[in-house]
C-alpha cells in the first residue's frame, strides 16, 4: 500500500477524531492514526507535533502531564468542548466533501 502525505486540514481532523476516545500522548496519536489507516498515513513527527501545538493554541485541545502506561511521564492531549464542536463540524464537512468527490469520480456510463 502506498503511503500518503497528509494535508494540514486532514491531519487536524484525524487528530481530533483520535482523541474522541480519550486523552492520548503524541506517540499514541501518531500510532493510532497509522493503525487506523492501516499504515496508509505515515505521520511525520515534524508535522505531528507542530499540529498538536497549533490545535492547542487554537483552544481545541488541552494538554496535561500524566504518567503513561509504560510508566513514563508524557504530555497527554484531550479534546476541549470547542474541540468537540469543531470535530463535529469538520466531520460534516468531510462527509460532504467525500460525497461530492465520490460523485465526480463515478465512472460515466456511456
Amino acid at each position, binding site marked *: 500500500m502506498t503511503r500518503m502525505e497528509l494535508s494540514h486540514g486532514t491531519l487536524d481532523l484525524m487528530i481530533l477524531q483520535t482523541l474522541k476516545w480519550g486523552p492520548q500522548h*503524541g506517540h499514541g496519536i501518531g500510532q493510532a492514526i497509522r493503525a487506523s489507516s492501516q499504515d496508509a498515513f505515515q505521520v511525520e513527527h515534524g508535522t505531528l507535533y507542530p499540529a498538536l501545538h497549533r490545535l492547542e493554541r487554537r483552544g481545541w485541545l488541552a494538554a496535561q502531564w500524566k504518567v503513561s502506561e509504560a510508566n*513514563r511521564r508524557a504530555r497527554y492531549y484531550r479534546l476541549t468542548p470547542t474541540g468537540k464542536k469543531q470535530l463535529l463540524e469538520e466531520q460534516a464537512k468531510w462527509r460532504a466533501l467525500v460525497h461530492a468527490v465520490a460523485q465526480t469520480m463515478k465512472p460515466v456510463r456511456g
Partner: protein
Amino acid sequence: MWPIFGGRKRETELDEELQAHIDIEATRLEAEGLSKEEAASRVRQTFGSRALVAEQTRDSWGLRWLNGVRQDLEYAFRSGRRAPVFGAAVVLSLALGIGASTLVFSVADTVYLRPLPYPVPGELMFVAMRIFRLEMVLSPDYVAWRKDHSAFVELAAMQFHGGDPAILGDKDPVEVHVTRVSYNFIAALGVPPAMGRNFEQNEELPNGHKAALLTDALWRTHFHSRADIVGRNIALDGVTYQVIGVLPHSFVMPLEVPADILTPLPITPAISHHDRGLATWTVIGRLRPGVTQAQAFANLKLLFAASRADAPEIFRDDASVMIEPLQQRMAGNVRTLLLVLAGAVGCLLMIACANVANLLLARWSARSRELAVRAAIGARRSRIVRQLVTETALYCAAGSAAGMALTALGLRTVVYFAAGSLPRLNEVRTDGRVFVIAIGVSLLTMLLFGLLPAWRAGRVDVQTVLQHAGRPGMSGGYRASRRALVAAEVALSVVLLWGAVLLLQTLWRMQHDHLGFAPEHVMSVSIPLRNTNRANANRKALTEEMLASIRRIPGTMAVSWTECTPLTGGPMGTTFTRSDRPLPKPWDRGDTVAGCAVGPEYFQASGMRLVRGRAFADADYDHPQTLAIVNEALARRYFPGEDPIGHQVDGHQNGGWKTIIGVMADSKNQGLNQPPAPQMFLNDIALSPGSNLAFVVRYVGAEPLFTGAVRASLQATDPGLLANFESLDQAIERMSAGSRFNGMLLGSFAVMAFLMAVVGVYGVLAFAVAQRAPEIGIRMALGAGPMSVQGLVLKEGVALVAIGTALGVAMSLVAGRYLKTLLYDISATDIRTYMAVVFAIAAAAMVAAWIPARRAASLDPTVTLRDS
C-alpha cells in the same frame, strides 16, 4: 533568560515531550522483541532530527518571528562564547572606529559647521586688505569704505587683534579685557543690547562721550547683576566711562577676541593716508540681503582701487583686498588640523572596518562546515542567513555601545587637553545627530560585512563542503579579498604611523631643541600698570621700588625689568638701519626688528647666553638707548660675515644711533614653532611707554613658596597691585599645548592602527596555514624541509607587507601637503621618518608572519594527512 518570549519552561517541556515520545517508542520496540540497543538505534532512524522537529514545533507557536530572534540571539551568544577572542576583537575594532569618528565629528561640527550665534550668519564677511603679510584695513580706508552701502548694510571695525587688558575700578581693581569697536559693530552682528542702548556715532569722535557696553558675564560677576548699572560710571585704567548698556547672554565676540567691555573706537572722520599714526583695524561686514560674496568682492575691488590711487606709496604692487565668510575665518587655521584629524580618523575607521570584515570572513569561512551541516539537517537557507545577520547585528550593537562610551570619554579628554588650541570648544557637546551618525556607521558596517558573507554562506553548496570533510574551510574566494584587506590595513597604518611620528618629532623639537635659554626656575611677573596715578613719568622710580621688593625675598638669584621674555620679541621696532648704509625711505618695506628694553641682570635672570661682547652695566643706564645687544639671528641677517660689535644701528627713529656691544644666543622669541626673529636688547627702562611693568626672576626653591613671597612683598610695597605670574616652564607648556594634543591624538590613533594591522597580518597567515595544512603535509611528505615550508608562509607575508607599505608611502606623499603646516623643523618627506616607519611595520609584520610560519614548519605530515 528571555522571559518576554515565553520563557525557558516551554522549551524544556517541548524537549521532554519529544524525549517521552522517543522513550515510549523504544519501549514499544523492545516489547516487540528487539534488544535495547537495536530499539534505540531504530528510534533514532525513524524519529529523524529531533532538533528539526523541535524547531518546526516552535515555529507553530505564536510570536514565531520573535521566537526565531530569541533563538538566534541565544545561538549568537553561545557561538560568541565559543570564540571570545574573535568577539572581543570585532567589538573593540568597531568601538575604536565608531568612537573615534563620532568624536572627531562632534568637534568638527562645533568648530566648523555649526552656524555662528548671530542672525543670518551667512551674511557676515571678514574684509581686509593684504599689506606686509598683514590682513587688516587702514583707518582712512575704513572711514571711506563704510560710506559706501552698495554691497554692505554695515561695515564694522574693531581694534586689530582686539582685547587690551585694562584695570577696572579704583579700589579692589580687577583686570578686564577691553575691545574698542566702531559704533555700528553690535548692529552689524545683529545682537542688540539686552539692557540700555547701543553706541552712537558721535561717541566715536576722539573727544566724544566715553561710553562702555558690558558683557553679560562681567555684569553678573563683577557688578552682581545690579539692575541700575546703566548710566553708572566705571573707571578703566583711571579714565571714567559711562555704562550705556549690557550685552545679551548669548553674545559671542567674533574671531575669538577676548572682551569683557566694549568701548567706541576713536575715529577721526577727516583722517587721510597722509596723517601720521594710521591705525590698522579688523573689519567685519554684513552683506545686503541678496548680494553675493562675489558681488561684494567686485565692489571692494573698486573701493580698494580708489584707496590705492590716493596713496600709491602705501599700496605697492602686491597689496590686495580680500573677503572671506566670517564662519570660515573663525574656523581659520584649525581647518588644516581638522583635515588632518579627519584623514586620520578616516584611516582608523577604514582599518577598523577592514579588520572586522577580515575577522568575519575568516570566521564564516571557518564555520562553513557547521553551516553546511545545519543546512543538511534541514535548516532553511533564509534561516541561516538570518542567523548570521543576527550574530553580526549583536556584535555591531555591542561595538556601537562601546563606541559611544568611548566618544563621551574622548570628548571630555579633548575639551581638557585642547582648551585654547581649538576655537568654540566650550560649545562642544555630543548631540543626537552624532549618535545617529554612529548608528549609521555601524549599520553600514553591518550591511557591508555582515550581509555579504551571510549571502555567500547562504549560497554554500552543502555537497561541496561536506565532500571536503575534515578541512575547516573551502572559501578560496575569500582568500583574495582578505589579503587585499590586510594590504590596505598595512597601507593605512603606514600613513597614520608616519603622520604621528612626524607630529611627535615636531613636539619634541619644539620643547627640547635649542630654546636658547634655561627655562627652569625662571618666573615672569607682569604688572598691568596703566592708570594715571602710576604714570610713566615715575616709571623708573616704580620699577626700582619693585626690583628692591623682589630682591628682598630669599631665593631670588637675579631679577630684571624687561619688555620681553625669551619666548616673546618685545615691542615691534621700526625699519632696521645701519649707520654705514643709506637710510631707507619713509614707508619703505624694509624689515622691522623687535626691540626690548631690559635691565642689567636680564641675561642672568632669563638664563640666556652671551656669545660675544659684554652685557649691560649699571652705568649704561645713565645714557639710555645708546647701546644695543643683538641676537645671532640679527647678526646673521644684517652683518653676514662681519662682526657686529662696534657698529651703529637703528638711528632714524629716536634720533640716536645705538652702538652694538654684544651678541646673544638666539632664543625662540616668536614662539616655539617659529625660527628666532632678529631682536635687539636696549639699555632703557622701556621702549613703549604704555607697556606693562614686567620682570623676570631667577630663583631657587619651590615655586609656590617663591610666588607667594613675591606676591606678599609686592602687596606690602603697593597695596591693591595686580601681578600675574607665569613660569617659563608653564609658558612653554601653554605654547606647546596644541601640538601636544595633535601628537597625542594622532599617536594614539597610530598605535591602534598599528596593532590592528599586525593582528590582521597574523590572522590572515594563521588562517592560511590552517587551511593549507593538508597541502603543507603533502609537501613535507614529499621531502620539503621545515625551512622551505616556513619560507612558503613567510613569502606570502612579505608580499602582503611589501604591497601595503608601498601603497602607504604613496598615500603619505599625498597627505604630506596637508600635514606640512603642522610641522616644525622637519620636512614631511623626512627620509629617516619613512625608514623608521617602514622598518617598524615590516618588523612587526614579520613577527606576526613568523608565528604561523613556524607552526606550519612544525606540522607533522602524518597527522595533517590523516586528518584530511
